[in-house]
């Protein structure tokens, strides 16, 4: 669908093999955005309204924001999403731990406002990448994010939190025990317990365990949540748990499977170096996903959001989410 729009976008974005512009607000000015409403009106009235709107491009010094934007309700929302990238050893020890985050905003503001976003622990961010609208020197000098926001949704900044000194907080504690019974029967037990998550429940927990390609007769048990076994290319167990409160008892998952005897010969074949983890006899790791709403693991919070230049009332909203980034449990 809309392939012609894609064509038009591409012809604006890339000129003779080199990227020209990838800014969404500029492109929006150049290529009309198809919408269902437009299409309905076109079909009903028989005339396209799009043809009457002349495309224009904003050549001011703020190419991301055009002049004369009007909104009935002036709102500005800030989402601070933090992601924990961690490798957790089977015994629950933290092998590597890294917190990074994004500040995404949704702006519906009239005119040309200039905003100042003050964070409480700006010094904790040791590496920040900004949207072009942010004044870099203001940040350098005062650790304040000053910017003229683009209209609509955009990613204001992404940051990395200095974690060397900070305690390594994990909202979810995980342990795994892998044992091999008799000859070909493997058992994987995964335990998930609530960790430090600011007294909030850990939600949308998903544990994905890819099993070796030769695994069969997979039996899964779990005390809480639901599990599915899929077998697309290699078998995989998915365990999902809606929520785990801070005081609840931990949840357990037990996977038991057999490995085909032929795997032994396959392993000694020359393609052992092949990349897919399926060529190995046992599972490597579990990939974990979760989300804690209203909790910021780095405790970076928005102190204040001030608006300069324009003078109307502004509705502000802030949300914090901590998610699992690339979160792995090694066996």
């Amino acid at each position, binding site marked *: 669908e809309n392939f012609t729009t894609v064509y038009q976008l591409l012809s604006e974005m890339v000129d*003779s093999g080199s990227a020209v512009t990838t800014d969404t607000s500029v492109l929006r000015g150049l290529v009309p955005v198809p919408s269902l409403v437009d299409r309905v009106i076109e079909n009903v009235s028989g005339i396209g309204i799009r*043809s009457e709107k002349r495309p224009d491009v904003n050549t001011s010094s703020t190419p991301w924001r055009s002049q004369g934007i009007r909104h009935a309700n002036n709102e500005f929302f800030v989402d601070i999403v933090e992601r924990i990238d961690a490798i957790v050893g089977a015994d629950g020890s933290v092998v590597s731990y890294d917190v990074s985050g994004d500040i995404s905003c949704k702006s519906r503001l009239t005119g040309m406002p200039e905003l100042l976003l003050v964070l409480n622990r700006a010094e904790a961010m040791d590496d920040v990448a900004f949207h072009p609208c942010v004044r*870099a020197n203001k940040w350098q000098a005062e650790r304040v994010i000053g910017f003229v926001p683009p209209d609509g949704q955009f990613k204001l900044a992404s940051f990395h939190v200095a974690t060397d000194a900070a305690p390594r907080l994990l909202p979810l504690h995980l342990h795994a025990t892998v044992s091999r019974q008799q000859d070909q029967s493997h058992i994987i037990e995964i335990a998930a317990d609530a960790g430090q998550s600011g007294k909030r429940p850990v939600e949308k927990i998903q544990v994905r365990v890819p099993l070796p390609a030769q695994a069969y007769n997979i039996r899964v048990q779990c005390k809480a949540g639901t599990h599915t076994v899929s077998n697309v290319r290699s078998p995989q167990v998915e365990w999902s748990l809606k929520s785990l409160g801070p005081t609840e008892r931990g949840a357990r998952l037990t996977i038991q499977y057999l490995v085909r005897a032929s795997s032994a010969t396959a392993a000694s074949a020359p393609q052992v170096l092949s990349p897919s983890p399926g060529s*190995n006899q046992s599972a490597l790791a579990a990939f974990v996903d979760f989300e804690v709403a209203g909790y910021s693991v780095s405790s970076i919070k928005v102190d204040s959001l001030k608006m300069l230049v324009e003078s109307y009332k502004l509705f502000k909203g802030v949300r914090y989410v901590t998610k699992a980034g690339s979160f792995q449990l090694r066996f």
Partner: protein
Amino acid sequence: MAEYLSKAMALAQDAAKLSMRFSEGLVDNALEFGLDTPGSFYDNAEYKLALVRKELGSGSDKDKLVAMKRLLAAVAKGYDASEYFADVVKNVASGNLEVRRLVYIYLLRYAEQEQDLALLSVNTFQRDLGDSNQVIRAMALRVMSSIRVPVISPIVVLAVRKLALDRSPHVRKTAALAVTKLIRLDAGLREELVEIVETMLRENSPLAVGSVIRAFCAVCPTRYDMVHGQFRRWCVMLADLDEWGQVELVKLLMAYARTQFAKPVSDSLDADHALLLRSIQPLMQSRNSAVVMSAVSAFCHLAPQTLLPVVARPLVRLLKAGRESAYAVLTNIQQIARRSPAMFSPYVRSFYVAASDPPFTRRLKLQILAAIVSSKTVSMMVAEVAGYTQSLLTDVAVGAAGVLLACARSVRESVMDCFTSLLLMLDDARPEVSSAAMRAVRALLLDGTVRDLQDRTMTLYDIICYLVRKMDSDKFKDDGARACVVGLVCAFMQSKFGCLHALEVLRRGTRSFKEEGAQTKMQLLELGACLMLVHRTQEDGPLAKMMEEYSEKLGDIHTYLFTLARYDVDFDVRDRARMLRALCPLPGDEAHSEQMPRVLEISREIMATGIDSLGQTSGGGSQSSQTTAFTIGSLSLTVDRPMSEYAPLPEWPAVKPPSVDRGALPGTRNVGGGGSVEVSSVITSQQQNYPMSRAINIAGISGRAQPYSSGPEYSTPRSAADHDDLDAFLNSADDSAGRVVHQTPRTAVVFQQPAESSDSDISSSEESESESSGLESSASSEERHSVSEESDEDASEGSDDERSPFAGVRSNSQPVLPSGSSAGYPSFNGRRGSEDEQVQPLMDGTSQHWQ
């Protein structure tokens, strides 16, 4: 009541009818509506192409739009729609902008095939060039310049010339891009275009500068005289450009700086050079990976060593940008880490292998880990890597052996841990893993890293014992690994125990000779020959007595072994046997007694090279064989071969270029050409003199200029020594093979009599780096060893037959390394010629001893 009921019935029936009709109508509408969704155009475009001609001819824009969508869908799916070219071109002047855009797309696709018809459209474009809407003007120029028909190029040049002075920056941008397309179409226009570009360079709008730079690079990338006047302005403007423009500008300024500034060798930096670096640094905080990468590249190639560490953090951040870009970033990190590993050591954890890493990322991560090991992080790293050795992924385990080797070599405290882990790895069931571990063990034993430990836990001969016992194990089956063990036994047979071991290994090896692999067979032959040599030459040495005891058995084994080898299936083995037999004749053979000493010496060398060639054969995967240094951040670096448009950065100028007027900074007086000033004073004086108004203070809103007060702190480079490193580093960027090759210092131990020490000059004759340090050997033999270090690379594939027998000199005695030597695996890149030249004189000087 009944009446009421029937009325109700009728009402209900009516309602039902009505609702039925209504829903029918809805379905009809929906059907009609559904037909018009673009998805259906795409799905069945080719069936309805017949309608296209009629629709295009109709007066309705809607029909035309439908027809164009069909055509484009057909084109997208690979159908040839060129037969409708004439009908389409008619619509090039359509009033409906969307139709026109689609026509343009179609036009560009087929203009080259239908050149004559395409010319018809040019008139319309020319009219559009004067349109009041900037987007229309730009679009017309863009399409016109994209039509690859040489005939119209003069017209396009005219148009570009006109629109280069347009009041809209958007149009000027398009004009600049048109220049790049024109030069590609017709190189004969160059002079004319250079003239246009020269006017364009005065561009003030950040929107268009990026494209102007691109045009400049396409037309006359080396006309640095045109850059002089703009340099300072551009530096200040850099932050305000659009992202792709920043990439282009940084690239240009990099090349400019490499030709116009002196290499940063002393404490002082040219004022403009400092300005450039200071302007580039904020780009590392861009959200666009390409911008970050170009800024990193600029720092790597322009900044003094002391400023380099700022690139580490942004690079590590880019690792999270996704699988493919992680790979590209890792190749760059690897390249940078090779030159200055220390700056990545705080980020060691970022290079830990995660289960989700694809194999190409895993390999690079392990190589980087091996490169950046430092005393601070080593304990953490060894613990982590020891876990990898049991990894189920074979490549990770193999790579872990390489990392452990690197750890042991660079940090003395970790040697024991690493070595123990490696020994444990030998038990691994996978032949790749155990042989990789064996290679690492062998390297550690041979270069003497482990020897210092023998007084503590186990002696060298305990280790050899352990390894020899491994030979009996069922698991230890890899040919390369077994050959390594035999080679080690051969290398350490100087003492009595070593010699006994050697005899025992030879005896067992001979018994199981036919089950061994080719490499092991060859090693056994060499071991046999070596023992024979020791037996024949050591008339009064400490080993002589013992050898006397075994003399008869040794002779028997030797004869038996060589007879077996003579009829071996592998021709390499037969060859080796023949050669060794000539050097070390069997009892029945004709002996060249007068040449014996020389033969012995040569054969010793062969032994040595034979040992060295081992371990190479089964893929030294732990070290890359990257030879050329490409510009950091370039595509060529990522794919490891020069791409077609790759242009290496120019070298720093040999003499300091004259200072030129680099234009004024915006809003300030021009202070003239940049003299050479202390770096720190540059920064401060610049801050006072040029209150740079970064246009990020958004014009028209805040209205006030912000002083550029927050320049990054530059520390003054500490000493000249730092810069020497930098020289090497920067030179190597463009230097081919020689410098950047993993230089593997290998030790050549030369036997010499003390009296002849004057002859030792020859050992340092060819290469200046070789030093005869005259270390006292602890080995039992009384000779004095002079140790010379040469950095030669082995060319070793499978067998050594084709290599020169003089390829390297090594004694059979315990090798003595200059302390602190950090040899890697000998790498693959052979430079055989020089080796021959180098080793030859050594031979002459040393052979006398044996007479």
